[in-house]
Structures are given as structure tokens and as C-alpha cells.
């Protein structure tokens, strides 16, 4: 692997800063290419994630059209918006990147499903419809049930706040009339008080808990052909838990994403924590990069640690996947937006008054979400003059400018595709 661990000094080819979707995807692709890689970062937005892998669900154009075929949508986008980060990649590259992530998830025992050329639709906990590209297999029966509008029972759990079966049934009543709602108590955890998705999920890893839950649900089934539950079906092997519930109840079962704190993020985090090191990545989760030193055309020296610098990493190449404001890749004050670690130039609106629109839900979206790092064809951040800020510095993920992953429903897709593009570019340099 070529790792030289000397007391507190580590040397590597590639240092990935960030452990969100972009950083993790970059690590997977780097490992597959045999690049000697170190990674640091907090779990980032992943903990809030829904587990859905969005690619492109709503168009980037101001008309915000709903996208059925994401590939066709992306082809349009590339034509109309050459500055969009997706446009730096070919359709094949984006597809390879998405498949690469899905394959990884399958290898670690959390298989995903989706249509090859069509977005899937599913119901959310507030009763809206959400488009996405790949869903954990435990959600798949929900996609099919919605398509067919089959008689379906949704069950909620006493104490699990923000997840109401009646809410979903009522909100969808005019378009999906044969939905029914029921509430159960958790017999193995009959303490009063709030219930948390993660606790329930860990409980359901035991056979006896699943048996009791099935017994509680059975009397409500009626003529339902499928059963929807909050996403609480285990952490390590959700599909196994789901299949077991199906066997016990004799009908297809699917999960519905819950509001944070949700198990989807925990499942992803545990998969990454355990399996990235197994791919040969030297990971420093729960560590951040405090400073980056660099002289032109030379190696980077990075101080890494939990609260204070503990280790110095020297690297030929750095990939910045530090996310936006929530991830802490970007910071702001009343006067403007800055990149947090290297003070790279940030493309942004002229004045704070243009950052956000007057209406939160304005379909046009907020201009601040298009702010970020401008990159060249090789995903290297550029300066005002259009030249790379640094020949061996790359960036990927939501920190990139000219995209709005929230409004175009492309969070995971954008992170993974740009990570793939950056690693390909790094590979080409031969370092």
C-alpha cells in the first residue's frame, strides 16, 4: 500500500479532505484505482441523509420540470448549462460513478434498487411525493405500491414523533384512496416517553422483537396488499430484517424515510466506517484538517487532528470535498462568502441581499446555493484569471459552484459524479 507511518507523520499520494458523500465516493474510486489515499473528515451531512441516492429529479432550469428520465434530463442540462459541474462529465462517466457507489453498497450488504433509465417515486413522511434514482432495497416495494396504488397499510409507532400514518393517508387520500393507517405500541420497549428510530432499529435486530412487532401489526392488516413502516428495520442488515417481517406477515413490506435523526444516516455511516479501511484507505474519521501548507508545484503538508493538530500528512495531491456551509467547507459573514481552509476564490452574488429569496419555498431557489468553487475541466479550483489555484489541488461535491443540489434533487449524484471526475483527472496526471 506504500503507507509510511512514522510516528506522527504520514505520507501519501492523495489526501481527501471530507468524509461526506463526495469524500467517501472519492475514497472508493481511489481505492479501486490503487491510489495510496488518506482521508479525514466528520460524518458530515451523511448523518442527516435519507439514504436515497438522488441523481437528477427536478430540472436546473427556472421552469423546474419534473424529470422522468434522469439521463435525458442530464443531456439537456449539459446542453443548456455548460458551467454546471455535471457538464464536466460525460453521461457514461456519471453512470459509471453511480453504478460504482451502488456496487459498493451491495458489497457491504446494503443493496440498492432503481430503474436503469427512470426516476423512482416514493411517498415521504409528510405525504408529499419524492423522486429519486436509487433506493435502499428495503424501500423498493413502496415504489411499486405507489405505482399500482394498491391497497396498502401504513403503520406508525407510538412515541416516534414526526411520523404519523394518518398524516400520510389523509394527505394522499384523493390520489391513493385505498391507503389505511394504524398505530402500534412497541411491546418489548413499553417505557413511556419518546422512541428513537435508531433504538427501535437496533431492537429489531433480534428475532423476538420482530415477532412481537409482527403480532402487533397483524390484526390491522385488513385487505392490505403491502405494508409501509417507518425506516426502523435494523442497522447492519436492513434487508434481512425486512425480508423476515415479510415472511412473518405474508405480504411485501417497505420502509418510509423518517425525519432526522434517522437510521438511514447511521446505516451509511457504519458501512463507511467499517468498509473504507478494508479497501485500504487510511481513514481519520472524527478528525479535521486544521491547516494546509503548500508551495507551488510541491507537496502539501496538512495538520490533522480532533481538536488540535495531532498528525502531519504530506500528500502529492489534495482533493477538497469539504461541502458547503453545513459541512463547513464554506463560511460567511455579513460581507461575503469564503472558502474555509485555503481561502480559495468563491463565486458568489455581489451582495448579501441577493443570497436568499423572500419566500423560503420559492421554486426559483436561492442564489446562495449556486455559490461555490469554480473548477477547470479537471476539477481544479480556478482563480479569477481562470487558471488553477494550484496544479495539484482538486475539488468535488456540493462545494462546487453553479449547482443547486437541493432544488434539483441531485445531492448524492452530484457528489459521487464529481468525485469520480476528480479521481479520473488525478489518475491522468499519473501521480
Amino acid at each position: 500500500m506504500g503507507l509510511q507511518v512514522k510516528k506522527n507523520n504520514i505520507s501519501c499520494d492523495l489526501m481527501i479532505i471530507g468524509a461526506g458523500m463526495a469524500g467517501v465516493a472519492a475514497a472508493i474510486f481511489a481505492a479501486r484505482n490503487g491510489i495510496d489515499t488518506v482521508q479525514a473528515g466528520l460524518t458530515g451531512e451523511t448523518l442527516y441523509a435519507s439514504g436515497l441516492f438522488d441523481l437528477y429529479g427536478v430540472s436546473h432550469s427556472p421552469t423546474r420540470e419534473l424529470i422522468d428520465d434522469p439521463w435525458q434530463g442530464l443531456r439537456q442540462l449539459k446542453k443548456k448549462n455548460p458551467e454546471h459541474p455535471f457538464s464536466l462529465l460525460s453521461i457514461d462517466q456519471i453512470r459509471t460513478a453511480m453504478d460504482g457507489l451502488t456496487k459498493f453498497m451491495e458489497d457491504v450488504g446494503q443493496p440498492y434498487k432503481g430503474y436503469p433509465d427512470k426516476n423512482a417515486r416514493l411517498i415521504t413522511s409528510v405525504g408529499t411525493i419524492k423522486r429519486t434514482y436509487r433506493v435502499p432495497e428495503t424501500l423498493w416495494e413502496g415504489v411499486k405500491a405507489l405505482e399500482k396504488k394498491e391497497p396498502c397499510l401504513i403503520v406508525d409507532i407510538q412515541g416516534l414523533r414526526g411520523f404519523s400514518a394518518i398524516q400520510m393517508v389523509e394527505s394522499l387520500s384523493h390520489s391513493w384512496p385505498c391507503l389505511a393507517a394504524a398505530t402500534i405500541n412497541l411491546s418489548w420497549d413499553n417505557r413511556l416517553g419518546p422512541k428513537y428510530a435508531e433504538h427501535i432499529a437496533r431492537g429489531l435486530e433480534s428475532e423476538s422483537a420482530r415477532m412481537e412487532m409482527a403480532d402487533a401489526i397483524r390484526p390491522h392488516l385488513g385487505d392490505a396488499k403491502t405494508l409501509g413502516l417507518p425506516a426502523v428495520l435494523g442497522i447492519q442488515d436492513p434487508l434481512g430484517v425486512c425480508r423476515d417481517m415479510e415472511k412473518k406477515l405474508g405480504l411485501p413490506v417497505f420502509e418510509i424515510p423518517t425525519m432526522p435523526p434517522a437510521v438511514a444516516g447511521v446505516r451509511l455511516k457504519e458501512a463507511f466506517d467499517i468498509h473504507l479501511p478494508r479497501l485500504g484507505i487510511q481513514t481519520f474519521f472524527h478528525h479535521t484538517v486544521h491547516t494546509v501548507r503548500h508551495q507551488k508545484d510541491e507537496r502539501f503538508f496538512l495538520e490533522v487532528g480532533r481538536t488540535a493538530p495531532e498528525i502531519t500528512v504530506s500528500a502529492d495531491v489534495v482533493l477538497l470535498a469539504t461541502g458547503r456551509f453545513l459541512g463547513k467547507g464554506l463560511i460567511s459573514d455579513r460581507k461575503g462568502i469564503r472558502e474555509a481552509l485555503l481561502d480559495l476564490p468563491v463565486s458568489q452574488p455581489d451582495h448579501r441581499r441577493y443570497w436568499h429569496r423572500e419566500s423560503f419555498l420559492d421554486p426559483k431557489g436561492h442564489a446562495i446555493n449556486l455559490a461555490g468553487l469554480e473548477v477547470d475541466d479537471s476539477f481544479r479550483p480556478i482563480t479569477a484569471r481562470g487558471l488553477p489555484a494550484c496544479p495539484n489541488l482538486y475539488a468535488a461535491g456540493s462545494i462546487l459552484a453553479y449547482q443547486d443540489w437541493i432544488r434539483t434533487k441531485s445531492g448524492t449524484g452530484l457528489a459521487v459524479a464529481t468525485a469520480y471526475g476528480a479521481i479520473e483527472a488525478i489518475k491522468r496526471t499519473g501521480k
Partner: protein
Amino acid sequence: MTLKTQVLIIGGGATGTGLARDLSLRGINCMLVEKQDINAGASGGNHGLLHSGARYIASDPASAKECREEGSILKRLAPQCVEDTGGLFVAVKGDNENYIADFPDRCSRCGISCVAVDPKEALVLEPSLSPDIIAAYAVEDASIDPFMLSLDNLAQACELGASQLLHHQVVGFEKRGGKIEAVRLMDRRRDEEVRIFTDQVVNACGAWAGEVAAMAGVRINMVYSQGTLVISRMRIGERVINRLRKAADADILVPAGTVSIFGTTSRRIDAPDNYRPTTDEIDAMIDDGMAMIPKLADTRYIRAYAGVRPLVKSGNDDDDRAVSRGFSLMDHQADGLDNFITITGGKLTTYRLMAEKTADLVCRRMGITQACRTAHEHLPASHAAQYTEPGFTPKLWFKKNDPSDLLLCECEMVSTAVFNEIAESLCENGHRPGLLEMGQRSRVGKGPCQGSFCSLRMTAHMYNKGMLKNGEGIAELKDFLNERWRGIQPLLWGSAVSQAELQEALHCGLLNLDVEESA
């Protein structure tokens, strides 16, 4: 639906609720109608300063005296709504020396107490003041809770037999022979029309008074001035702090419980509904206010809001601050309507006096001789506003120690039981309370998460309780989020930007509330 009352009061602000109490204490049957919620207008969008009068000594000595008198009455009779903080007027280097020199004299001419304080001592009293202050005077300003005030007034009125209709908007008048016979309203929640037959009509619609009068064919010449305010996360200072200069923007910092409120601005707008706090106002206010209180530059603010001052025009002044802040009581007999009165303008501080004068006129019309009682009788505390007090619900929750009482709002610790109690108190007349009203009457959505999470828990709970049906919850959520956004959008910088990003990722990225898509 058709209803009947002796006196119909239009507008549920400080003036309307104060009038409902005044009339009820005189034994007159009245009904208060409000197009949104209590204090939806300027009474919910003001600074909460119980004026000593010192701010108006130069521009409007008559108002200054009114404030002095009314301020001292309220401190005595409604102490539950007032925090008697005292106030300071301070000047910094560069402020007009003549104004400073004339200040104590002018105060004493209006009978307003004003005591010189050595600048060094002022710094000890209020350490957040700039070391550059050159003069300071102590006055009898105080802080008042406008929401508690209106709810207490209304609660006593209702106890004495008055009734209220929230979310009912006046849309027209039926006139016959120089009189208004009935008032037409729209029940905005049910989309139904309601007619109310009445003997007397009082238009207490503040900035909307012109609009409402026009429906009765009466013209009032009004202009509108927006004022913007910001709430700091923590309380800054013990007293009300005023800039000692001719009234201008960014002059006043008022402590209110655990927070402080800084403002304000004066911006002409063309219609009373077109108000909202803007980024430019906030930036200008902070840049200006820093001279007096440097800390304002790096304080964290949790919410901005704005209110509209109705300015009844007589001349053609360009400076809105020069238009009198006194109130206008208009008897529309002169306009050919015998039973229609408008009361507008004025201040929160003088709301009681405004109500008294209006009630006197109503009584004269009706041939009733009962005298006003509000200048001498205590305003009973109703507890209706207790849940808006920071720290109250957490204490209650810990004391009750009932694990089955789930928290709906974790930041401010508002539990299901408290939520249900407030909701029930609002369910009169078959009314269905919404998320915004619940937020108004409790601290739900006022914590650091700005409603991102509690809005979802509340909506789910409301469906479980049968308070919401069909797709109503999605519409409620959108309204709640957009309304909260008004108050945070101009304050988005630093860590607030991350919070907003999380909120958008959740509500739009995951829950798709920005997209219309049916199953």
C-alpha cells in the same frame, strides 16, 4: 351565518382589544373581529418600549406628555406586562451638541424626569455601551410585552361577555339611511361569508384603517412607514438604551426578558401589507448602532420583524418622523355615517387613552353615561400569554416529570400537553387553530432550529389529533415555514446560513415541499 352585537370592533391590536375591555367594563356588549390573529399588525411588530416620553420632547411635546402619563398608569395597573427597567439616553462623539445641551430642559418642560449620569458611571451601569459616549441621562422608560397586554385585555373583555372572531376579515358594509346596518366578513379559514348586525362600528385597524374606511365610502388620507427590528439571542444590557439625538434610525435597544430588541427604521411603503424586514435595513442599522453599542456588530440575532406605522396626513411633510405620533379619533358623522368611528395612529404606550376616548364617543352616541374604569382598575393577568415566556415551558415540563408527555419542540421544550391545552383554548366557535397561531401562543419554532424539526412533529401530532385533514398539513407547513423565513432571511450570515441550509435540505431536498407533485 348572521350574528348580532351592540358594538362591533374591527381590528385585534392593542387598541381594539383595549377598547373591548373598556366597553365591557362599562357594561356594553361588543364583538371584536380580526382578519388574522391577535396582534397581527403593528401591535405585534413594535419595539415593546413603554415610552417615558423623552424621545418625543422635541418633535411632539404633546405626545411626550401623553406617554409620560400613560406609562406611569400602565406600570401601576398592568405590572404583569411591564418590566420596569428604567432607561438611558446616551450620546457619542459627533452627535449634535445643541440637542444634548437642550435635552434636560425640554424634558422638564414636559414634566418628564431626567437625571444626568456621568458617562463613566453609565459605562458601569451598562458595560456594553461604547467607551466613547460623551453624555448620559437616566429616564423612566420601561419594557412592555405587547402580546400579553392584548391577550389580558381581551380575556377580561370576554369574561365580561364580549366575543371575538379571529381570521374574520371585514370585506364590506351594508348601509341604510346614513347608518351602517350590517358588516360583511369573510371567514378566511372556512371561506364563508358572515354578516354581523350592529348599532355602532369602530374601525381600529391601525395601518389598515384607510382601507377599511374606504369600504364604507369614507376617505382617510394615510401614508405608511415601515419600521424594522431585530431580536438578539441574548439580552444586552439591563435598561432601555436610547441614542441621545433627534429621533433617527437604529436609536433604541430594549431588553425583553432573555433577549433584547434593537431598532428601528423608517421606510415609506406604498401599501400596509407590503412590509417585511430587509437585508439593507439590518445592515444599515447594525453599522449605525455600533457607534453606541459596539457589541451589536458581532451579536447573534435570532429573528427580524417589521411593523407599519399608520401616519394620518395633514400637511405634506416628507419626513415621516415629523408627522405626529399622536392618535387620530375620527367621528364619521361628518362623512355622513352616524354610527362609524375610526381610531388610528398613536402608540402602544397610549393605547389605553385611545380606547378611553373612543369608548367615550361610542357612549355619547348610545346615550350611555358610564364612566371609564381603566385608568383606576387593575388589568387582571389572564395567563393566556404565559407559554410565550422563555423558560416557562421547560420548568413546567421538568416539574411535571411525566414521561408520556412527549416534547414537540425540543429547542424550547414545548410538550404535547401544553400544545393540546393551547389548541383547546383556541377551539371556540368551531375554530381550527393552525401552526402559525400555535407558534404565536407558545415558543414553538422560536429556538435555534427555527422550526425545522418542530414544525414536522407538530403537523404529525395535529393529524393524529384530528386537527388536520386531507392535504391541509402540507399547506400549513408551507405557510409556517415561509412566515418564519421572513424573520430569518435578512439575518442569514455566519452560522445561521448553515442552519438555513439544513432546513432547506430537509424541507426541499428530502421532503419536496418546493415541488408540486401528486401521487
